[in-house]
């Protein structure tokens, strides 16, 4: 298929300088763009490192020994960093550290990326209002960024990542500090995102199964499984120490199966399996 419409990682190995072992080992992926990809794994599985590679942070900002190739939609951070960088939006693990550190208000913070790109003032104000509404921050626009709660800070970090309308969105555990209602709203919002490739690291597997087109499971630096949520969670290895989603557990207990003798992992599939059994 067309290189411009694929995410291609070939024999990717990454080792931070000064470390003895590799953080990523021989990662191979060839998958279409435009999907929501959920990345799942435990400590030291390499999922955050993978995020950094996908965002180009490695090796452009953090030095590491890297081998193999990485292109997304035909672009690589190594070829044209500025172009690659403008096409991505990134949400890092630590939301407070992501703020520019030179903004009076949430509105100024949101405008930052657009000012950097030289966007005109009226476009800026329109986009700021728009993403603030999407992330539920409209009432906070005049507040100081540092006065926000953890969950609001995380939503602000997401808003700064999407304000430039990136084609690729990379989020490392973006809901860790949100309360359940905030998290629910975030995952609902994620289903409304169009024409964007989304990489999301999260431990909320119930939610991932509802929104993700594809799940990648990382274990000890290797990509041990990839495919649709249904496929991946029906073939977990106990070694990876990844739990099954609640839907799967319920269906397994009740022995509600889908055609192909697999268990459902998302709500709609559960309904299907339930109807097929009862």
């Amino acid at each position, binding site marked *: 298929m067309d290189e411009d419409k694929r995410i291609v990682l070939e024999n990717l190995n990454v080792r931070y300088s000064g470390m003895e072992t590799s953080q990523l080992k021989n990662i191979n992926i060839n998958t279409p763009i435009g999907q929501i990809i959920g990345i799942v794994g435990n400590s030291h599985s390499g999922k955050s490192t993978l995020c950094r590679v996908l*965002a180009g*942070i490695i090796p*452009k*900002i*953090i030095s590491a020994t890297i081998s193999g190739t990485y292109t997304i939609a035909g672009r690589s951070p190594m070829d044209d960093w*500025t172009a690659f*960088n*403008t096409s*991505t939006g*990134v949400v*890092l*693990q*630590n939301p*407070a*550290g*992501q*703020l*520019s*550190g*030179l*903004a*009076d208000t949430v509105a100024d913070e949101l*405008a*930052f*990326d657009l*000012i*950097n*790109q*030289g966007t005109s003032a009226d476009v800026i104000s329109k986009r700021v209002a728009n993403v603030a509404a999407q992330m539920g921050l409209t009432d906070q626009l005049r507040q*100081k960024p*540092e006065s926000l709660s953890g969950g609001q800070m995380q939503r602000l970090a997401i808003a*700064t990542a999407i304000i430039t309308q990136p084609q690729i969105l990379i989020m490392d555990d973006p809901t860790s500090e949100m309360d359940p209602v905030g998290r629910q709203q975030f995952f609902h919002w994620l289903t409304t995102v169009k024409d964007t490739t989304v990489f999301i690291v999260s431990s909320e597997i119930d939610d991932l199964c509802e929104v993700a087109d594809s799940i990648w499971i990382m274990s000890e630096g290797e990509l041990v499984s990839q495919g649709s949520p249904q496929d991946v969670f029906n073939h977990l290895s106990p070694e990876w120490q990844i739990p099954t989603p609640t839907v799967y557990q319920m269906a397994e207990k009740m022995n509600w199966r889908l055609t192909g003798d697999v268990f459902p992992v998302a709500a709609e599939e559960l309904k299907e399996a339930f109807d097929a059994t009862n």
Partner: protein
Amino acid sequence: MTDQSMLSDESAGKSKWYNAVDPITKLLFILDMALLSFAGTNLIMEAGLITAAFLLLVFSKISSTTVKALGFSLFLIFTMLVIQGLFYSKNQTVLFSVLGINFYKEGLMYATTLGSRVLVIILASGFFMVTTTISENAKYLEQSGLSYKTVYVLMSVCYILPEIMGNMRKIQQAQRVRGVNPQRTILQKLKSVLPVLIPLVIKTLDQSMTRSISLQLRGFDNPKRKALKADTHYRLAGMWHIGLTMIAVVLIGWKLWTKINGLF
């Protein structure tokens, strides 16, 4: 830096006269006042400068920061008067005696001159401190052609400081419930700052790492960056700059000239 008014925007609606004066003009004003006070040795002139700077403050506004800065210096000026009044090397003429201790005219004059200079600088800076906000300075500096990097390095600490202070409070609480023994000696006290400082430094540096990565990802050094226009409109900025700089040059030149002449 703890003064919140430094950060909060003055409400755009009610613009005062001093908002029309740009930050550089205000800084040059401090420089000129300081040079003037150092140029003269005449106490009447010093008194005049103090009065001028004080009136300027009265007609703008007086904030607690200026009062604090003044409080500290006044105490120091007082000790200076005592020490120099008693021990100044050129002391000759007894001005008055308290409990048999002689205070000399030369020392007191010397200390008064020094103290006046300090007061002139504090009051003149006070005008700058109470009439500009950090964001105004940041925007103005960037518009004046300073790179975003430089502005960032100069100004960002005022924004991240509340965050660091917040982290410090959290860390102090977390350590207090782990039990910190009461400290009496200096060494014990010094050791007791480590449980707070180590997590705080690591957290602060960790945040600067993330921030540095994030700023690059957010394209802060994109050549297309256009600085935001400041909300305030400055009047006659160019004229002020030239005028005040000229005064500064003349004062320095004159001081040098008299020094050089004095050598021969």
